[in-house]
């Protein structure tokens, strides 16, 4: 591991990890906090957590890869989530994904070349009354039609 990739956790994160170290079942809570701070779980971050919690890296990697919520690659500046829960699927979630691909040359699981957007297809975000739903950086857009997609992403470009 080169020094260039070394991660430095903020003092708050370090304090959080120390607080949780003695609690049983701490790993997922710690990983959430790490992802909240750096946006994903890099190999280097996982190494650091392994050291701090005294848990084998394999255990951490096992957990990180099991859960959809943990990301292994750096997301774009604005992360786009398109809901593919049943209600959104029936009401045209796929059409939104296709439109995003057309507009941004962006496929699910990828990041745009300029690093501005990344795209995820997610399970139900729990706003089924607003189907189909997409979120950009946590902001929810409901009853989205294909024609609105360009306008929504323009707000974040």
């Amino acid at each position, binding site marked *: 591991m080169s020094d260039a990739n070394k991660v430095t956790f903020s003092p708050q994160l370090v304090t959080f990890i120390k607080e949780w170290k003695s609690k049983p079942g701490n790993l*997922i*809570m710690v990983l959430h906090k790490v992802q909240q701070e750096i946006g994903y779980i890099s190999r280097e971050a996982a190494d650091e957590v392994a050291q701090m919690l005294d848990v084998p890296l394999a255990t951490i990697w096992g957990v990180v890869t*099991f859960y959809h919520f943990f990301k292994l690659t750096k997301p774009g500046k604005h992360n786009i989530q398109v809901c593919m829960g*049943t209600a959104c*699927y*029936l009401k045209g979630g796929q059409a939104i994904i296709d439109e995003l691909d057309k507009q941004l040359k962006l496929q699910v699981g990828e990041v745009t070349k300029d690093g501005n957007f990344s795209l995820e297809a997610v399970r*139900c975000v729990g706003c*089924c*009354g*607003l189907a189909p739903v997409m979120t950009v950086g946590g902001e929810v857009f409901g009853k989205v039609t294909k024609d609105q997609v360009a306008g929504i992403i323009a707000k974040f470009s």
Partner: protein
Amino acid sequence: MAFRNYILVCGGTACESSRADQIYKNLIEECKAQGVAEEVQVVKTGCFGFCEQGPIVKILPEDSFYVKVKPEDAKELVSEHIIKGREVTRLLYDKESSRKNAKVEDIKFYQKQFRIVLRNCGFIDPENIDEYIAREGYQALEKALFEMTSEDIIEELKTAGLRGRGGAGFPTWMKWNFSRQAEGAIKYVVCNADEGDPGAYMDRSTLEGDPHSVLEAMTICGKAIGASQGFIYIRAEYPLAIHRLEVAMKQAREYGLLGENILGSGFNFDIEIRLGAGAFVCGEETALLQSIEGKRGMPQPRPPFPAVKGLWGKPTVINNVETWANIPVIITKGGNWFSKIGTADSKGTKVFALTGKIRNSGLVEVPMGTTLREIVFDIGGGIANDKKFKAVQTGGPSGGVITEENLDTPIDFGSLVRIGSMMGSGGMIVMDEDDCIVDVAKFYLNFTVDESCGKCAPCRIGGRSLCNILEKITAGNGTLQDLDTLETIGEAMKKGSLCALGQTAPNPVLSTVKHFKEEYMAHIVDKTCPSGTCKKLVSYSINAEKCIGCTACARKCPVAAISGEKKQVHIIDQATCIKCGVCMETCKFGAVEIH
């Protein structure tokens, strides 16, 4: 101090995303600006349930129900309704009616509903414990701590006949009783708020609208089984619900309703939040416990059941959010009262997330025994855009489809199983004639394949095989033999899988094959998709009589598959066409047809 008017603004996730927060802030500002801040209280409540019409604002005491409100409407609402006492007609749900019958209980969406679980959603500010207390909150806890023994509490649940709302419908009192009787000084209480069923948001809305009801119930359970620690396992994707739970826990501790020596009774109980991380299988109780322990969420063989040997090997009661929310009411009003609601098989109410191709999407709570027809057509207002009803899917990826012929079945745990579906957690997805049933089955199978933890072979391999066959059928390569194979594999998965995920994963396939065999046959024998959903089975063509040669479709076609001169009939080259459907959307004359 009493206020002249109360303005309730929906603060559920759906309304929040339609800028309800800005409406709330603007209303407060306007009340100040127009000099009525002292007389009016603006409250941000939990979900009203009528998400289709959001954001919703209700003004008391007139009970005026305003829908699709925008932040800029705040000024008018205050100047007209509050100051001049005139309703803002253009924003009322029922614009035609006079003030008298514009009341909430006259809105058809609410008429057949009966609210126990959602009793406080849309009435109180979930971030203010005093409002929960004002509506009989924490009375059940007081009663349980000072007037009831552990046995009394469990007996009350037995009388009530409450069954678990997470899906399986196991009698709640039995779970509690197993844990109470189990040996051990350390026991745990767990709330399952890992609502993973796509198309369902009952638990989210309950936690966002009434978090104290769950805290109170868990504490009562702690007393009943002898536990002093609870955990709420909640999806990380629900930030608002997590926030409201944290606020509620803090307030409850300050009031001496959570923590050490609760209400001076000497009983200690506290709750911690643990976050899920997006794994559907963690809704299964043994997998959920693994996840709380910080591990991969793999289900474990049962028995031993968690009630006897659960979290860190200790006796653990796990109930779902909706089950918890019922409990304070049962303790306060008595099991007898509760047992009078519902059917012989299932007591109380059930909350459903009514979504899909329905006119009034939203969250509905009805007594057990209500028919699907009442839910879909009376409460839900029927199918959107006047399309034809096709089926209702209940139970999410574990359930099945219910067709027209069974719409009059009174819903309870038993009846839904008898008609080939299941209660599940409460997702209710309505489908219309435009939805392809094979595609829907494939959607659910893709979901369960993706979410299978991979531990046992029937689920891991069986699910993948089902998916491959459905893929083959929707691509026009299916054979009649495939239908038999689907059933054989499905039955094997039901018998052989370790947990409920694998055991129920074939249900969407088996029930659609049973009820919509002709649609499968159309895909297999005629190589057509009647609804036009399966791209590989459809073709587009231009009706020469309707085409006026405007060239609009040719200009929009992304692969230049359409040719034709101006004012001449256009033709689609089938070899080049990628079946994206843009031409059909573009044509203003209905000349593009799908086959």
